[in-house]
């Protein structure tokens, strides 16, 4: 069993929330009787943004709350969807009368629980809309886009959703722009070794010592290609070869690039991956507007990484640049 800095495994989510709020209590608080958090101060007259999903993938979803980000986050237990009551509480906290947008990853558990919450919210007179992140190119072919899982692409979709809500757009417009962002994100991961559920004695999934799996999902869902370990350049080449034709992303396009670590992979490695990704994109005449490396959507101590490309147009660029802060990321930095 992997050594983890936990106490009683049953309490991991609440204890993590306690520590997080101990640090950011000036900005956020926990909602009564549920594992959900919300901003202390919400500007009136805006559409609310509620995100959520299983815990265990930090910084997502817990830390994507703040200015130009989510207003409330519904937290499930490790790798489990939050129940409708948790999501409903988050919805109530975020709703200021102009409706609430739900953004979450496309997984059966999350879909069913958020749908039920939307039904309950409707009964209480709150309007909701939903955008599911479906960026994992490996999960299903383009004809079955709705079967694709949400992985690190959450990073871009939530950024855009947070920006349009902060800009004061109405619910219909908020949804339109967020859907457009969702439709322009493509990702793929490669797994080196599995993560484990805190307190569990065996790994969340199987992967032999000397093997890797291209396209494996964030909970160990099957990928497209299992094989022996390869140099980083070869992995990046194969992954981009699968990602680029999917939308497609072509010469002349402008993209944001995210190299995301799954938890155990070092920053040294992520920069080596980035090096190849940037050079390949340059070779193909694809402009990179912004790039970022780090752990943004993890699976405990899973080793591996994903590459996400976010194709921009002028409108998406404007909202990507929208000033925002959350504990996971901010674009409010004076560089010089």
């Amino acid at each position, binding site marked *: 069993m992997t050594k983890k800095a936990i106490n009683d495994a049953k309490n991991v989510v609440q204890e993590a929330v306690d520590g997080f709020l101990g640090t950011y209590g000036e900005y956020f608080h926990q909602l009564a009787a549920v594992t959900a958090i919300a901003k202390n101060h919400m500007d009136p007259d805006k559409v609310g943004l509620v995100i959520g999903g299983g815990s265990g993938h930090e910084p997502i979803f817990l830390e994507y709350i703040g200015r130009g980000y989510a207003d409330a986050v519904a937290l*499930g*237990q490790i790798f*489990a969807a939050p*129940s*409708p009551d948790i999501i409903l509480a988050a919805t109530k906290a975020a709703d200021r009368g102009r409706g609430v947008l739900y953004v979450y990853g496309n997984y059966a*558990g999350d879909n069913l*629980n958020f749908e039920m919450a939307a039904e309950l919210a409707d009964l209480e007179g709150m309007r909701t809309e939903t955008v599911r992140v479906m960026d994992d190119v490996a999960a299903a072919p383009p004809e079955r886009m709705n079967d694709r899982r949400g992985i690190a692409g959450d990073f871009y979709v939530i950024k855009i959703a947070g920006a349009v809500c902060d800009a004061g757009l109405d619910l219909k417009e908020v949804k339109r722009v967020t859907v457009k962002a969702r439709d322009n994100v493509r990702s793929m991961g490669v797994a080196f070794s599995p993560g484990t559920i805190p307190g569990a004695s065996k790994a969340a999934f199987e992967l032999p010592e000397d093997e890797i799996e291209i396209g494996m999902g964030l909970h160990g869902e099957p990928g497209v290609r299992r094989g022996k370990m390869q140099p980083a350049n070869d992995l990046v080449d194969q992954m981009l070869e699968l990602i680029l034709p999917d939308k497609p992303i072509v010469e002349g396009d402008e993209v944001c690039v995210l190299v995301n670590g799954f938890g155990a992979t070092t920053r040294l490695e992520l920069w080596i991956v980035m090096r190849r990704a940037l050079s390949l994109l340059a070779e193909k005449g694809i402009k990179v507007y912004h790039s970022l490396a780090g752990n943004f959507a993890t699976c405990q101590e899973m080793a591996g990484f994903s590459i996400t490309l976010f194709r921009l147009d002028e409108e998406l660029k404007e909202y990507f640049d929208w000033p925002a802060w959350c504990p996971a990321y901010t674009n409010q930095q004076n560089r010089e």
Partner: protein
Amino acid sequence: MFLYVARTVVAQREMLCEADRHVGDGDHGISMANGFEAVAKELETHEYNDVYLVFSTVGRTMMKVMGGASGIIFGLLFYAGARNMAAKAEIDETDVAAIFEKALVEIETKGGAKPGDKTLVDGLAPVVQAMRDSVVGRLAFPAMLRAACDAAGQGLQASKQYVAKVGKAKTLGERAIGYPDAGCVSLSVIMRAMSDWANTFCI
């Protein structure tokens, strides 16, 4: 009736976990037991004059406590046919059949499963058919539940031969053959408990 069902499910917790071990995480039994423990607590501490409210409370409590996709699916079993129904202090055989029929439709739609996918639907579809037949045949409540219970058992046996198309077991492929779907096992336990109660107390 639901208190009886709840106690039976909690007592069968280990058996349900075992059923789940080969085709899932092995935690289905814990989940079901937690769900029904919460149901029992809820029912014991409140008074109800509306049968539909009892059903929908059972469903909502399970959704709240169980979590995941199965929390919603099992919750819908009792909630789908009971929500938004006008209050009734007593319901008859036709009403009960309608509740389970609505549940089947909604579970199939939301869960994306059909008979043969190795899910709860493999047990529930025969249950609904048996209830329909019982209503046509004018069987009384205890007999209807006994028929439904038998149907659930047959659905359970049938599910053993299927490869899972939906849910966690879907990655197992052929390895799932020979084992029943854990949801069908739970459904059988629930139907048997309902049938036993009705055949003991409703004569």
